[in-house]
């Protein structure tokens, strides 16, 4: 792999212009890998390791019964949220995702303590313990959750895009969804209106290859998901979602397209989750070897580590950062375990905003 400071041929695949009358339509450029500075690489590494350690700890706390219900871990997919959100302006651009949402919150710099305390259902949690793993929000950061119904965030995201356009605030919405959600009808209803009204939105399919236990080609007649917007005239780009620089590069191109008033764009991030769909998934639908092979060959964190070494960052510096992150995560876990559960009266608050 070449040094990050020198451009290399990107592995990004762009949907071919379809044959027919509209083949002359303008299309986005083929993205190139992002040229990150040493500082930026360090920051990517820090965020990705933070997500991984945080999620490992969440898994551990789940095993101890401190986290209940459903808990979907982001391990393996770290490069996607970090690569994309590093290109956004928090407080201006908006982000919305499904229930696998811890990583996206961490990538937006939201305090790990508040996230972990939400996982353990404590008063100090970001949703005051009333949302849980799947329902976390930070309106301050324009992070709109945290949605449990597969695909709902795509329509809601189109609504956020609508609000950006209505207010003419220059913001762009990023709506993440999985390869499973990509088969929901409302996704296509939203594609249609988003393109029709040229809404400023980047649709991001996090294709981690399995919708719960069903692989993409067992569920999708068109398994090249970046083509899924074509019949709505939404251009698509397939991206190596295990490489944070490829992700960031594609996001830059997508932002250029959307901010240029061209309407939405679709990014398919080819990624992989190492863990089960949720904590209770025995993952019998894929082999142990498949997972191990992804970890060995394509791990996004190992990838950045390599870039860092090439950029002259020492092993000791990396190790120091690892230690620092372990400490942050341990503190978050400690906070989440020791802070109190919500007061009983919270059961009845926030049902409605107003009193009638």
């Amino acid at each position: 792999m070449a040094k990050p400071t020198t451009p290399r041929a990107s592995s990004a695949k762009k949907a071919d212009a379809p044959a027919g009358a509209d083949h002359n339509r303008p299309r986005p450029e083929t993205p190139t890998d992002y040229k990150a500075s040493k500082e930026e690489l360090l920051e990517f590494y820090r965020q990705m390791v933070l997500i991984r350690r945080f999620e490992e700890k969440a898994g551990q706390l789940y095993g101890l019964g401190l986290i209940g219900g459903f808990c979907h871990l982001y391990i393996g997919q770290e490069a996607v949220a970090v690569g994309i959100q590093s290109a956004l302006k928090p407080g201006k651009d908006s982000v919305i995702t499904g229930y696998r949402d811890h990583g996206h919150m961490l990538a937006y710099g939201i305090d790990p303590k508040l996230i972990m305390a939400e996982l353990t259902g404590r008063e100090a949690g970001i949703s005051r313990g009333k949302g849980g793993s799947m329902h976390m929000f930070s309106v301050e950061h324009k992070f709109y959750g945290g949605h449990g119904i597969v695909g709902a965030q795509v329509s809601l995201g189109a609504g956020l895009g609508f609000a950006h356009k209505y207010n003419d605030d220059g913001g762009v919405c990023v709506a993440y969804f999985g390869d499973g959600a990509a088969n929901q009808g409302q996704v296509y209803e939203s594609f249609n209106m988003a393109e029709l009204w040229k809404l400023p939105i980047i649709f991001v399919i996090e294709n981690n290859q399995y919708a719960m236990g069903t692989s993409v080609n067992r569920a999708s007649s068109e398994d090249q998901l970046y083509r899924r917007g074509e019949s709505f005239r939404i251009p698509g780009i397939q991206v190596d979602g295990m490489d944070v620089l490829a992700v960031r590069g594609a996001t830059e191109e997508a932002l250029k397209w959307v901010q240029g008033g061209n309407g939405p764009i679709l990014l398919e991030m080819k990624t992989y989750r190492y863990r089960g769909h949720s904590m209770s998934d025995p993952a019998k639908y894929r082999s142990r070897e498949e997972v191990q092979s992804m970890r060995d060959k394509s791990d996004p964190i190992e990838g950045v580590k390599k870039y860092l070494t090439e950029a002259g960052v020492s092993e000791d510096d990396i190790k120091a950062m690892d230690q620092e992150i372990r400490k942050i995560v341990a503190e978050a876990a400690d906070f989440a375990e020791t802070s109190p559960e919500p007061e009983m009266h919270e059961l009845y608050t926030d049902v409605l905003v107003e009193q009638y």
Partner: protein
Amino acid sequence: MGIAIKMPALSPTMEEGTLAKWLVKEGDEVKSGDILAEIETDKATMEFEAVDEGKIGKIMISEGTEGVKVGTVIAEMAGEGGEVAPTPAPTAKADAKAEAPTKPEGGAAKLAAEAKPTVQDPAIPEGTEFVKTTVREALRDAMAEEMRRDERVFVMGEEVAEYQGAYKVTQGLLDEFGAKRVIDTPITEYGFAGIGAGAAMGGLRPVIEFMTFNFAMQAIDHIINSAAKTNYMSGGQMRCPIVFRGPNGAASRVGAQHSQNYGPWYAAVPGLIVIAPYDAADAKGLLKAAIRSEDPVVFLENELVYGRSFDVPKLDDHVLPIGKARIMKPGKDVTLVSYSIGVGLALDAAETLAGEGIDAEVIDLRTLRPLDTATVLESLKKTNRIVVVEEGWPTCSIASEIAAVVMEKGFDDLDAPVLRVTNEDVPLPYAANLEKAALIDAARVVDAAKKVCYK
């Protein structure tokens, strides 16, 4: 520093499991992601991965052991230079379980009691002119006034703009406010309900029109899961101030799929406001209040009432309180409780009853959630008899809810059982005679009222 490896909970319901097989032995070096053991849960056999790096110390629970409680120490591991904090004892879970939530006295009813209990319709100044207005025009005027007042308000739906509204409710809005704020959608209810909810989360004030509420079943996920639950799930951080409106209930000869009252459906959902007005003044005053509310509102209109004219006060800003019933006609012998189109039938019935010497009080609930039970119970104290009139199915209806509330809180005031006058419990038929037989009418209300008056 040693780390205790504990029996993990591998599913939301697991309390114990079988340690089927150890895949490591004492003295093995493991790293994060290595499988330590296979554990049989109540659902499946799961692989249990190491989270930390280190060397396996003592194995305390041998393989094949059944009924190992979650949290039991199954092995010890020597950590990497003490950098990993010891895993905590899982006491918090036990505590959390032991402390079952005790429901405070009154529950949601307590909250309702804390709400403004004495709120009344604003007094209409003496000398105010009243203008005959159709419900259709009143609804349009409400939207137009709120759009003039607040730039964030927009109207979206099928045929709301260029067609001027499938039922002409949005007539003229496109001309005044333009295509940015009056938006025709494709036929795509699920999609535009979601776009509306997302826009509300993003700070706008959408008014989403469903051509009829029958089609909103396609979108009900966003009304309930996205709009109604957001404020609660976010701990009050994220709001969804949106109005979903359109005609509801039976129209005329349009068959089963286009004829249904969804009032009871939405009224069952905490987090929603549900309004179902009858006359033009209430339609206007309540729609304006709905658009201003910080909460998601389902606003149920009725196609058969759109064309009826009523007196509407000519005021600059006619806004009515949400959650307050209205006494349409005072009386002392029997209380007729209704909403939407049923109110007209109840008023007709009251007129007939008056001719037979029965003085009926007619209450229009106006809001179905929160329900103004105080007004109903107050009336019951006076009349001791209640008939609920509802153009909708009987089972799990608003009428059922009123009957339950009266049983719980007004039992001693009852001189007769609560009766429900509702549609027949069948899908609405097309044939004219069958449709007529399936729907409520004033005669049935009269019969029920006489029955509870033992006349």
